[in-house]
């Protein structure tokens, strides 16, 4: 088989904001890519292939922008690949880039994901360009209501997640929202947007990009900074709608993480994984994904949140970067999760570093909670050994 080790040796992201009016789309993606190249101690010419991911082209009104951005990303004369798997796209962009090295096709690959939401309007794009868009919040609110009822979780769990992730985001120099003075009270009192979700339990709308440089075993060992080793990648999808579908606890979510655990040899995720970046655009998704990815037993996810286990100083920190709740350049959000997991095992996460993190999990999901992309990264090729 041609499967071979893959190392993350460069990570870059933009300063995420609601409106990055200082840059063009070109400038936005290049800002992230150049930071990743710098981190990898590489130049454009060192890259063999580029993978671009973003959510619907309707967000910026540029159709198939991989063509327009090819030379901006130094891809002249190289392979340029475009991925689009809805909200999970940032994750898929990382996975495809990683596999281009894993398969032995290329030695050094750059994956870039972005969204410049301020050029357009996400609610417009999500509503198919028509009036009465329910938006992502409207689509997920019923799932959240069902989870609350099913698990018997107290209503303040969502507020706690909202506070925890924003406090983490305040430690992240790149985060869009830096709400160091956020409180449970403020979340609770913020306007109800999509019952039962309050405004402060929802992700912002951001301009931003993220880039990752992958290389092979030799490149990883020779890197000037510690690499993160890609231990497993997985994607799973299921239909968005069928009678009786359990969208709160999707089978595809279980299958995707089970595939990751099997590849890495994880038998007890809560004990063996040091921290996780999960795609939590609405606060309640933290306990929901802890359960759907079998980190917590059914109905127990909210107790992990409630006990503080998922805080930066807890035994299973989640969304150390501040997560999607602190920055949401949609197409890039998945790759930001994957990148933060890699930063953690590289020991380069700064003020939001989890001490001694050796094995980290990242996840992104999309559409009607039906597409999942995940990876596990380690500080070595055998972090459990």
């Amino acid at each position, binding site marked *: 088989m041609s499967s071979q080790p893959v190392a993350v040796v460069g990570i870059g992201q933009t300063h995420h904001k609601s409106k990055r009016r200082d840059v063009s789309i070109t400038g936005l993606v290049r800002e992230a890519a150049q930071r990743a190249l710098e981190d990898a101690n590489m130049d454009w010419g060192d890259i063999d292939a580029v993978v671009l991911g973003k959510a619907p082209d309707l967000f910026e009104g540029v159709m198939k922008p991989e063509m327009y951005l090819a*030379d901006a990303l130094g891809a002249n004369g190289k392979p340029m690949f475009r991925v689009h798997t809805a909200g999970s796209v940032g994750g898929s962009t990382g996975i495809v880039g990683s596999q281009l090295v894993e398969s032995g096709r290329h030695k050094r690959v750059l994956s870039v994901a972005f969204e410049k939401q301020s050029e357009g309007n996400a609610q417009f794009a999500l509503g198919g360009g028509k009036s009465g868009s329910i938006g992502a919040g409207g689509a997920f609110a019923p799932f959240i209501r069902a989870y609350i009822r099913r698990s018997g979780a107290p209503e303040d769990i969502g507020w706690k997640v909202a506070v925890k992730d924003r406090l983490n985001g305040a430690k992240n120099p790149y985060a869009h929202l830096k709400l160091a003075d956020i409180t449970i009270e403020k979340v609770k009192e913020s306007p109800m947007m999509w019952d039962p979700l309050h405004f402060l339990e929802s992700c912002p709308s951001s301009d931003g990009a993220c880039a990752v440089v992958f290389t092979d075993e030799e490149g990883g060992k020779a890197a000037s900074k510690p690499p993160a080793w890609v231990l497993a990648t997985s994607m799973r999808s299921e239909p968005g709608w069928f009678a009786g579908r359990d969208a709160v606890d999707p089978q595809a979510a279980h299958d995707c993480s089970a595939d990751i655990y099997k590849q890495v040899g994880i038998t007890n995720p809560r004990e063996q994984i040091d921290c996780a970046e999960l795609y939590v655009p609405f606060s309640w998704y933290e306990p929901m994904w802890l359960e759907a990815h079998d980190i917590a037993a059914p109905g127990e996810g909210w107790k992990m949140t409630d006990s503080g286990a998922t805080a930066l100083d807890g035994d299973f920190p989640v969304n150390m970067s501040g997560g999607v709740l602190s920055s949401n350049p949609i197409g890039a959000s998945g790759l930001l999760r994957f990148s933060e997991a890699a930063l953690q095992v590289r020991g380069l996460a700064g003020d939001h570093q989890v001490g001694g993190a050796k094995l980290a999990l990242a996840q992104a999901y999309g559409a009607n909670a039906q597409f999942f992309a995940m990876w596990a990264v380690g500080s070595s090729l055998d972090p459990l050994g």
Partner: protein
Amino acid sequence: MPRSENDIAIVGFAQSPMLRRSENTEAEMMLPTVQGAIKMAGLEKEDIGFTVSGSCDYLSGRGFSFVANVDAYGAWPPINESHVEMDGAWAMYEAFIHLLLGHIDTALAAGVGKTSNSDPTTLYTIEMDPYYLTPLGADPWSLAALQYRALLDSGKATERDVAEVVARNLANAKGNINAQVSGDVSVDEILAQPYVRNPLRKADLPPVTDGCAAVVLARGKKAYDLCERPVWITGFDHRVEPHLPTLRSDLTVSESTRLAAEGAGAGNGPIDLAEIYAPFSFQELILRESLGLSDDTVVNASGGAQGANPVMVTGLLRVIAAAQAIMDGRANRALAHATSGPCLQQNLVCILEGDE
């Protein structure tokens, strides 16, 4: 040539009817097509290790349009699945890479597009540089015509040469039961047509087509288990070049095609047959040269994009046409090409071989 577990082959394929207008949705076009490819490989949907499709939101006019297409797979229990906003030929590339990893031994790649819903002269303006070209309404016909005139001015081809390409492709399409457009048209008749964008004539434009195609790939021994004459993918590469045609040093060559052909090892042996995706007729001449094809190679026996051009699918149709020729014994080493962009900005080359 002995095959290894790292060798990957096409073992099944299918395409929908190629229509000026399908009344079905993308998902409805996909369902029988995907199932047809799986059935040809002698498999059930549960046997497929990885599924990936290519389609385009702006072609549908809706964000996340591919999400509904997952219904066509019957993706339950959940499946290992991905999507590219590219021609199905690139979806096949992702499937190929996935198989190379050695974790799975079968994969399905599809492409689907309804071109009939929109007007190409307005829609594709937003595919161009959003600052320097989109505000000019720079349309693909105009951009292609600029490349066409550069070709004429270079002295490499005449309008008659290009009209001969059109006439040959339409005649070839008569033998392709899947072609949407075919017929006997004389070169003089073509040359008598008015210009839509001087020197581009209506006959040089591809037809507007709705359609879908799918292929099933298998790795190593599995390919022989499923198919009497697997079509081995012995070379596969794709390249891009600067998006602004004004920044290309010579519009009459396709440097990214040349690099992709080189990367795919096109020159490692004679090519019996080539299926080239030339959206505009004259581009076939540019591509022939950049692919390094000899006069012995049969080009676009299917009629090529002139016979049917479902955008997001046409490249994968080239792969299928070449694979069919190998399965039928009409060729043993064939080249399939796919492109994106009105001036051939991005190109893919796939080398296919039979066992004889």
